[in-house]
C-alpha cells in the first residue's frame, strides 16, 4: 500500500527515476517513522534508527521527503544554501519550486558520482561527473532551455577562476547534449548519464583540469 502511494506521488511529480533508483525497503523504513513534511522532514528522516539492512536509507532522505511531500522540504533547505550566486538567488525568487528541484538534482548528481569516485573533489573527474550528471538530470526534467539557465546561473560567480568556470560550462553542455541524445530513446536517467559520462571521459570529450592520477600521487 505504501509503495502504491509512493508510486502515485512519483508519477504526480513526474519523477519515476528517483523511485527506480531507491531501494524499496527504504520507503517502508521512512513510512514506519511517520516523518512530518517541511524542513523537519529531512532532520527527522536523518534521525530515524537504521539496521544493517536499512543503513543506506538516510542517503535517500532527500528523495523520500521530495516524493512524499513535494518540494516543501527543499524550498526550506534552499534558504540555508549559503553560497548561491546572485543569479541563482534571482532564479530562486522567480521559480522557487523549480529551483528547489534543481538543487535536489545537484545532490543526486553528487551521490551518483560518489558511486564511481571516492570523494568529491575540485577540478578532477569527480567534478566533471557532478556537472555532467547534474546537467543531464536537469535536462531530463526541465528540458535544455531552463536547464542551461540554471547551470549558467550557478557559474555566474567571481569566486572561481576562468579555467574552472570554462571546465564547468563545457561539462555542463556535454551533460545537456548527452541527455538530449538519451531522450531520443527515452533513456535519460541517472544510470545512463553515468555510463555516458564514463564513455565521454574515456573518449576525452570532457574537460578535466587536474586528473586524479596526477593530483594525489
Amino acid at each position: 500500500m505504501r509503495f502504491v502511494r509512493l508510486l502515485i506521488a512519483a508519477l504526480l511529480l513526474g519523477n519515476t527515476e528517483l523511485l527506480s533508483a531507491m531501494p524499496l525497503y527504504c520507503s517502508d523504513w521512512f513510512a514506519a517513522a511517520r516523518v512530518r513534511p517541511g524542513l523537519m522532514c529531512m532532520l527527522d528522516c536523518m534521525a530515524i534508527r537504521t539496521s544493517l539492512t536499512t543503513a543506506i536509507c538516510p542517503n535517500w532522505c532527500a528523495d523520500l521527503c521530495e516524493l512524499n511531500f513535494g518540494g516543501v522540504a527543499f524550498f526550506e533547505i534552499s534558504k540555508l544554501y549559503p553560497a548561491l550566486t546572485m543569479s541563482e538567488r534571482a532564479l530562486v525568487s522567480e521559480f522557487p519550486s523549480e529551483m528547489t528541484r534543481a538543487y535536489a538534482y545537484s545532490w543526486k548528481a553528487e551521490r551518483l558520482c560518489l558511486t564511481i569516485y571516492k570523494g568529491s573533489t575540485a577540478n578532477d573527474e569527480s567534478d566533471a561527473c557532478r556537472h555532467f550528471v547534474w546537467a543531464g538530470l536537469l535536462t531530463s526534467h526541465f528540458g535544455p532551455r531552463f536547464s542551461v539557465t540554471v547551470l549558467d546561473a550557478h557559474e555566474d560567480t567571481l569566486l572561481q577562476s576562468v579555467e574552472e568556470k570554462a571546465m564547468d560550462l563545457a561539462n555542463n553542455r556535454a551533460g545537456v547534449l548527452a541527455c538530449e541524445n538519451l531522450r531520443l530513446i527515452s533513456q535519460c536517467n541517472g544510470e545512463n548519464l553515468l555510463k555516458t559520462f564514463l564513455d565521454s571521459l574515456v573518449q576525452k570529450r570532457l574537460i578535466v583540469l587536474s586528473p586524479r592520477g596526477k593530483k594525489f600521487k
Partner: protein
Amino acid sequence: MKNIIIFILVMTAASEPSFAQLVWFGKKMTVEKAEKRWGGEGFDASRFKNGGLTERSKMASSLLRNKNRWIGRPIEDIRKELGNHDGYYFTDTIPAYLITWAEKSNDEIWQIVFLPDGNYLVKDVIIEQNGS
C-alpha cells in the same frame, strides 16, 4: 528519551541556520579529535598553501582553534591566502581543502571547509568528512 533528543536537535536546527548546515551536510570532526589524530602544529599559511596533505592535516587543529582569524573575511581572501582549494563541499564556490586522502577503499577523506554567510563572508570553519 530518543524523542526528547530529536526534539532538541530539531528545535536547535530550526532556530540556528549554521547548526542546521552541520546537521545536513556531512560528518564533522572536533578540534580535539583533529589534534589527537594529526597533531597540533602551528598554522602557517605559506606552508599550508605549498605543503602536501600531511603538512595540512598537522595544522588543521591550529587553524580551527584560531578560526576567528578567518571569520568575517571575504570568501575570495581564502583562495588568495591558501591557494586553490581541492576539496568540495556542496558547491564549487565554498573553499574546501583536503587534509587526508583515501589510499585504501575504506579510508576516510577529511577536509577543512570555510562556510560562507549570505554576503560571501566566512561564517565558520569546520573539518568535514568529504562525501559523507
